[in-house]
């Protein structure tokens, strides 16, 4: 790792943000980020299938337990965001897959062999899949497609789905305007999901490269804090991507089921007592 970082430091800070072709299969150009994505997918599949065969009721610890914690965390998160947990249970596999894909992609992308340290000609041979806008845009588009299809199916038809954009009667011009605005905001979600992931990963890469360059022969020492920060950011971004996708779906599905049985916000629906953290009870009203 030290040697590779010194190579970066001596050649000046240069980060290739655009993907570059490494292979040519027929008319399809395989870019470095695609190659990395495929390797990553293979790695994740092998590791997670291997793990799935070794899960026991009494945990033995080690790597398997960490995977279990991750799966449990995300599946609880997805189930709890839905009013009806049975609906949420159906979409757990998709979101767990997305979470682990982004997590492993980001973490493996921090290895010195990925990125500028390992070149073929003038371009890196492998680039993080999430550090390429094409990759994250595809992920954002797939996620939003799943969200749209699922929310139309769960809310029972297109009309019911469109109803959740309107807070009141659509014939009221104010509510109509707000509803149309909501629909427009909905379309920007693909871009915001993909840009957030792409920029976080790419800027992390730039940050590490710049500090490795500034450190000169102390490159490992100056780049280490930022690499550790990136480990945290990578996990956070995987979490954010998953929970935003879940929330987009949950808002549409929960809103639709709320419309079915008129929302009641009168005094009877509000509990008279509420539990405080210390276990005391406070009354209000």
């Amino acid at each position, binding site marked *: 790792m030290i040697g590779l970082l010194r190579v970066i430091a001596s050649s000046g800070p240069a980060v290739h*943000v655009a993907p570059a072709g490494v292979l040519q299969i027929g008319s399809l150009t395989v870019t470095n980020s695609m190659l990395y994505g495929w390797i990553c997918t293979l790695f994740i599949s092998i590791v997670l299938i291997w793990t799935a065969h070794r899960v026991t009721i009494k945990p033995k610890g080690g790597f398997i337990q960490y995977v279990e914690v991750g799966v449990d965390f995300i599946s609880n998160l997805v189930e709890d965001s839905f009013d009806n947990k049975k609906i949420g249970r159906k979409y757990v596999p998709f979101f767990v897959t997305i979470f682990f894909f982004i997590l492993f992609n980001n973490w493996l992308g921090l290895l010195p062999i990925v990125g500028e340290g390992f070149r073929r000609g003038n371009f890196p041979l492998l680039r993080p899949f999430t550090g390429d806008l094409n990759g994250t845009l595809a992920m954002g588009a797939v996620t939003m497609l799943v969200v749209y299809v699922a929310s139309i199916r769960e809310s029972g038809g297109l009309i019911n789905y469109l109803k959740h954009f309107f807070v009141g009667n659509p014939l009221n011009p104010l509510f109509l305007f707000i509803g149309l605005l909501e629909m427009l905001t909905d379309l920007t979600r693909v871009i915001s999901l993909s*840009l*957030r992931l792409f920029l976080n990963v790419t*800027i992390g890469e730039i940050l590490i490269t710049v500090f490795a360059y500034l450190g000169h022969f102390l490159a490992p020492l100056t780049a280490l804090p930022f690499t550790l920060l990136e480990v945290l950011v990578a996990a956070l971004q995987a*979490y*954010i991507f998953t929970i*935003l996708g879940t929330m987009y779906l949950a808002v549409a599905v929960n809103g639709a089921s709320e419309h079915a049985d008129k929302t009641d916000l009168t005094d009877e629906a509000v509990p008279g007592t509420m539990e*405080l*953290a210390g276990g005391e009870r406070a009354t209000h009203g």
Partner: protein
Amino acid sequence: MTFADAAINTTIISKGLILGGGFIGPGIGIGLVGGNYLQAVGRNPGASKFLLGQALIFVAIVELFGLLAFASIFIVA
């Protein structure tokens, strides 16, 4: 020599303005999110676990605009 004669590197100036201006907003935003999170946890310590997830989501949403500003300095030529 007048001021107009000196070669002014407008690229550097614009990059500085983008970075300076673009980082103010997210800085304030993350400060507000963090401050209000601490206030909420101070009021109800039991909700800290639930609120942390919510706070992180909003940090990520706010952070996007800072990242956009950072990314756009590479477009300026």
